[in-house]
């Protein structure tokens, strides 16, 4: 209905010499445009020059209704057993879809997990999910937080029963899947339609590469980019700022958590203490850092690689076997470059935020 009203305003002939009425009309159209903008779906688009996504869209074609349903589910605490935790509790848009100020996140009843909640961004290119890569498909990932005792502590069947009891949800599932029966599969597919849309490719860095306005890099930022490409980019590969592999980056293992990372999944000694190479996009807002969230500040993360604290071990990344030495000024420049990966258009995009339904 709102859309048709916008069209009506646009088609209406403007009477001559009625500037006041014209201004009112424009104002009305603007306010309508504003209220409808955040209700618009965001459908996946592959940025020019980026690799082919890993996610198979043909098995879950995106629709506006599917995106909106996924967003509604993402922000709904009904997905947790006691109705207290939503996906967004630990993946908040304000903090690049991760959990700011939390080394590890807490699920229902304040139960703590063991790993730092990752930023949800550019997920269509992930070849696996979780710090240990144990999950092989975006759609199936959400089973983990829903069922993990330290997170939502629910069962898929009970969650589906709860949603099926909601008339509003049945209507939305009908719009998304042409069938009002709510199933675990449809919940997962709808969530994936939303999360796969969380794309960030409009940071200053991107605009710099595209020679666009807003992409003007300072000398220190450009020096940071040069140093980054020299010392960091073999793992944090552009444009995704990850190479989708797992690496031991020489952190001292936490003797309480005893988290051996990828080894948990593969049981291969070669994978001991290896964790996902995370993307660095929006890193300014995704603190704390590392798989266990041990670093609160970005400078600590850079210092880890440059101040001789790397712990030698048989599985240590070969790139880190020779110490990386960077001056304080160089470290600062790398940090300034990393800030150019902040994508305000993405972080502030109202279409990804909670919408009162």
């Amino acid at each position: 209905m709102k859309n048709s009203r916008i069209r009506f305003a646009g088609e209406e002939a403007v009477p001559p010499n009625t500037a006041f009425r014209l201004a009112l009309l424009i104002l009305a159209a603007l306010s309508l445009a504003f209220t409808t903008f955040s209700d618009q779906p965001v459908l996946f688009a592959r940025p020019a020059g980026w690799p082919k996504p890993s996610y198979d869209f043909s098995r879950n074609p995106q629709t506006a209704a599917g995106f909106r349903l996924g967003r509604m589910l993402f922000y709904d605490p009904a997905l947790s057993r006691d109705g207290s935790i939503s996906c967004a509790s630990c993946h908040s848009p304000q903090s690049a879809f991760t959990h700011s100020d939390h080394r590890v996140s807490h699920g229902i009843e304040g139960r703590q997990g063991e790993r730092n909640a990752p930023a949800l961004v550019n997920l269509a290119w992930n070849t696996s999910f979780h710090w240990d890569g144990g999950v092989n498909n975006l759609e199936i990932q959400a089973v983990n937080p829903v069922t993990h005792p330290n997170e939502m502590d629910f069962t898929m069947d009970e969650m589906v029963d709860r949603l099926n009891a909601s008339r509003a949800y049945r209507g939305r599932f009908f719009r998304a899947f042409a069938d009002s029966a709510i199933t675990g599969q449809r919940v997962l597919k709808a969530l994936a339609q939303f999360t796969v849309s969380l794309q960030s490719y409009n940071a200053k860095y991107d605009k710099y590469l595209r020679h666009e306005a807003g992409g003007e890099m300072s000398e220190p930022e450009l020096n940071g980019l040069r140093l980054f490409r020299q010392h960091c980019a073999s793992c944090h590969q552009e444009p995704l700022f990850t190479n989708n592999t797992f690496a031991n980056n020489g952190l001292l293992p936490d003797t309480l958590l005893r988290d051996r990372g990828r080894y948990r999944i593969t049981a291969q000694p070669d994978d001991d203490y290896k964790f996902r190479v995370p993307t660095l996009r929006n890193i300014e807002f995704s603190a704390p850092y590392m798989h266990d969230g041990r670093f609160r500040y970005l400078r600590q993360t850079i210092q880890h690689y440059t101040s001789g604290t790397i712990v030698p071990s048989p599985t240590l990344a070969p790139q880190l076997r020779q110490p990386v030495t960077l001056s304080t000024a160089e470290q600062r420049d790398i940090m300034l470059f990393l800030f150019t990966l902040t994508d305000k258009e993405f972080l502030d995009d109202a279409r990804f935020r909670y919408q009162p339904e």
Partner: protein
Amino acid sequence: MFGAEKLALETKAYPTSQNGPVTIATFRFYLSALRLTYTDGSTYTEPNSFHLIDAEIDASQAFTLSTAPTKPLRSISFCVGVDSLTNTSGAHGGDLEPGRGMYWAWHSGYINAKLEGRSPACANPRKAFEFHIGGFQAPYRSLRPVTLVVPFGAGASLVIRADAARWLGQLKLADNSSVLVPGAAAMRVADGYAGMFSIGAGDEE
């Protein structure tokens, strides 16, 4: 089934030769990729063929192939478990819903078959055994193909017996009473479920 009789869960201890009296709590497996071969050489492949067979749920133990031609059968083949493409291609519905207790969330993949119960032979305080058998990546693919020859003169209704006693007969519970992850041990247990099937007499069930 357990041997010659219909399996009763929890309530009955079945005597066995190498594992002592055994009580079964869970007996559940995926039957997939069903294919019929007729005596005239033609075949029928069931589309989207995934059936979760659960000893606890009677309705799961029978299904109809509504589009299959009714001609004399030579053999029937299927797999125990879920193929690797299905294991990697996202969220599935029906019997493949991930809420059926047959899916590993933390390490994506279907559990092909589950066998749980109790036996005094088990070397643990609860005297319990649990086998959650899955794994779809080389070298630990636990999907197992089964082909059964159909006896001459079988009718349009065919009974396939899945005998938990035969599966258990391949396991020595005193040595190993728990396999819960893909790997070499799961591969050995999977060989056991591949051999538990037979064609039943037409008057059963």
